[in-house]
């Protein structure tokens, strides 16, 4: 009897396992339409409820969930979509459409990159969520792999985070395949270098004029990683013995690469080296914690140099509290700040702060511009067809056309949004894509520095402050 009961239980369990597993698999994977995402008004911020899936223009955002660059891309797109939807969406051939945004985690900011996760994210967006446009990307290696999914499916993808030249070179060399690829942020690394050097030359010139030639030595301190290489080579060239400008030759007296895992004690040694080399200006090229340590030692030791360069963490408004105000007097570059780069920059800045409670990162402004750029092209052409209609329309956003008729083009927040038609890359240089130089000043305020008209025309920008030198530096330079 007992045996029979056990047998019945076994039959039930096995049948349950089989049927349950089969049905589960059926519903999850195999049923018609299974695994497909159903779009609704909850994906369209600011849109009225109850809109149908057909009324949604679907944007997919790739990036790392829970990490600043990926979140930035999402926040920018979300804000852009919300603004458009709240304004009533867009009309294409008398039908109203709303903007839908969705994101997938590509885990690309992970130092231990697992490329297949980026691919899976892109595939989910394209096949599962059936997006019509893609925005995002941050890590070059990851994006190089998963951009192919978008290209395969002829979906316009706008990169808002990876600076490598390869992407846009692809467009030039294999247009038939890569014509759907665009970059709205950041400006490419060679243009970036150009802007930094221009600024440094002018700054040194101006300081030397004021303090009778006190600036004689510069030093660089940088993370020993691939992305810093070109910039360092440039600095070594311009301030080295064979520089093209005689006035700046032989100025480089300290050249400090460091491993990103350095400790505060290591940084102290480096700062002492910089002081011993008698540097007057120190150029950091830093993306990680190093900047924080540098500024902490700077505030304590009060060395006789000024810090001017790239410090990614210092772009965030949280840097002041992180360093407890030690970052004061640091000058670093960032893409966007509260200024009239374009007429929409300040409204965007305020709207973003109102929506998310913090300052936008460069990926946020880039993706905001990217979404608006696509929506502009859709609106202009009254079409959703990527090629040739939309692509051709987007390719008219050239430097010359925008300067001639700025009112015909979308107003982007990071600079006048012009693109090279052959590479689909962002045009760099005032007033298109340019970098701002900002200084941390008393009471956690961050002020835009005059570039002495070398990178941007100072008189054209609002919120330009004055350079404030640390008191100990003024004493040193005037005596």
């Amino acid at each position, binding site marked *: 009897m007992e045996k029979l009961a056990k047998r019945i239980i076994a039959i039930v*369990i096995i049948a349950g396992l089989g049927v349950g597993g089969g049905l589960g698999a059926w519903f999850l994977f195999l049923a018609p339409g299974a695994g497909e995402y159903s779009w609704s008004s909850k994906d369209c911020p600011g849109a009225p409820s109850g809109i149908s899936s057909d009324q949604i223009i679907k944007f997919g955002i790739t990036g790392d969930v829970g990490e600043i660059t990926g979140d930035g891309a999402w926040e920018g797109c979300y804000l852009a979509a919300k603004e458009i939807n709240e304004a009533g969406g867009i009309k294409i051939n008398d039908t109203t459409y709303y903007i839908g945004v969705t994101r997938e985690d590509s885990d690309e900011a992970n130092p231990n990159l697992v490329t297949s*996760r980026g691919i899976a994210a892109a595939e989910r967006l394209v096949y599962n969520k059936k997006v019509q446009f893609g925005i995002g990307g941050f890590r070059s290696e990851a994006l*190089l792999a998963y951009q192919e999914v978008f290209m395969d499916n002829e979906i316009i993808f706008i990169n808002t985070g990876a600076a490598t030249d390869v992407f846009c070179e692809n467009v030039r060399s294999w247009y038939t395949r890569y014509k759907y690829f665009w970059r709205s942020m950041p400006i490419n690394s060679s243009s970036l270098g150009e802007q930094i050097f221009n600024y440094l030359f002018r700054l040194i010139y101006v300081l030397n004029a004021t303090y009778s030639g006190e600036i004689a030595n510069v030093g660089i301190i940088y993370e020993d990683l691939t992305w810093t290489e070109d910039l360092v080579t440039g600095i070594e060239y311009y301030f080295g013995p064979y520089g093209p400008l005689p006035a700046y030759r032989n100025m480089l007296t300290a050249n400090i690469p460091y491993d990103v895992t350095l400790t505060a004690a290591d940084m102290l040694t480096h700062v002492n080296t910089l002081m011993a080399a008698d540097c007057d200006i120190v150029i950091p090229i830093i993306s990680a914690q190093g900047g924080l340590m540098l500024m902490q030692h700077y505030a304590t030791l009060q060395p006789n140099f000024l810090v001017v360069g790239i410090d990614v963490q210092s772009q965030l408004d949280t840097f002041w509290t992180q360093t407890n105000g030690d970052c004061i007097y640091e000058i670093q570059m960032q893409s966007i700040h509260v200024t009239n780069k374009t007429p929409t920059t300040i409204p965007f800045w305020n709207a973003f702060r109102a929506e998310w409670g913090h300052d936008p990162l460069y990926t946020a402004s880039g993706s905001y511009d990217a979404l608006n750029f696509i929506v502009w092209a859709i609106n202009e052409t009254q079409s959703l067809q990527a090629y040739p209609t939309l692509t051709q329309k987007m390719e008219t956003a050239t430097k010359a056309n925008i300067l001639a008729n700025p009112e015909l083009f979308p107003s982007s927040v990071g600079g006048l949004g012009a693109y090279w038609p052959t590479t689909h890359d962002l045009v760099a240089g005032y007033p298109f894509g340019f970098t701002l130089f900002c200084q941390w000043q008393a009471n956690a305020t961050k002020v835009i520095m005059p570039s002495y008209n070398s990178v941007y025309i100072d008189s054209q920008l609002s919120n330009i402050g004055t350079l404030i030198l640390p008191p100990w530096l003024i004493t040193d330079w005037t005596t």
Partner: protein
Amino acid sequence: MLNLKIVKEKMNEFPSYLKSWVKTFTGSLTIFCLLILFVMPFLSANQSFTHVFLRQFSLAMIFAIFAASWDLLTGISGQISFGHAIFFGISGYICAYLIKYQSFPIWISIIISTVVAVFFGLAIGFPLLRLKGPYLALGTLAMSLILLKLFLMGSLADWLFGSEGISALPGLAATPVIEYFILFIFMILTFVILIQISKSKFGTILKSIRDDEVGSDASGINTTKYKIYAFMLSSFFAGLAGGFYALYIGAVNPTGNFGTVLSFFAILMASLGGLATISGAALGAFFFIFLEYALIEIGVVEIGNLAIDFGLYKFAIFAVILIVIIRFAEHGILKPLLERLKDLWDLLLGR
């Protein structure tokens, strides 16, 4: 090393051996699972299915091959490798280079890159053979880190395609379904070969080296020779997986193909399934890939006012699940799973 006559004998008795194997519980279960895997692509013409889920199956199969190759070296032969990404990555790079810059056909590239991986197995196995246990593990780890750095930075990086690697490779096949079947066939081949090796006299010798190297030496076995064979065989299959992975992704880059995390994937998958079982590696790989995928897929779950983002904490949750499994099944899930199923089956048959 290989006795041809014995191989021939085995070949002759193969059909009957196969017949009796199919009748065993493990045999029929294996055939059942393979059948499911075989019919899967035909069950749905849904685009989302083929491009998203089937591709995950393909990924799992690549990692199954990779994890099984690790299991041969570490589980069967006892040579602990923490740097298996060496073979995986080098093969991927060679494959990508041949296809992209030498216009070699895909299959020739895969064969050449696998052979190169075997040479790397030889080149790395040889100097590291004097190291044992944790020191060998550290040695292989160091080797993989050196290779990663070599490809990533310094003046060599320009020559070795730098941090961006090689991209825009053609896929393994025109459609995900064909890709799936190619990988399916190669996975079965790999597992048949590796399981046969582990059951052969050769496998017995490898296991004896794992259990007691001195004792194996005292039994008259040239342990050095066999350890090198193990390294070469393992790197062959790791290289095969590496080549497939490069084509699956469509790009290679230092972190994505040499990263230590890949070595740990192999270790985790193989140990999750069950060390020294070979087939455990497949179970582990499928389990691993789909658990990770499910956590990402579930995304945000809202319970009342509380929103738990599984996507955000996926790796923490993932780690906890793995720890719990390893805590309760320290020899992997394969054996306990088979035993439970067998118990159930026996009950059903009234035994």
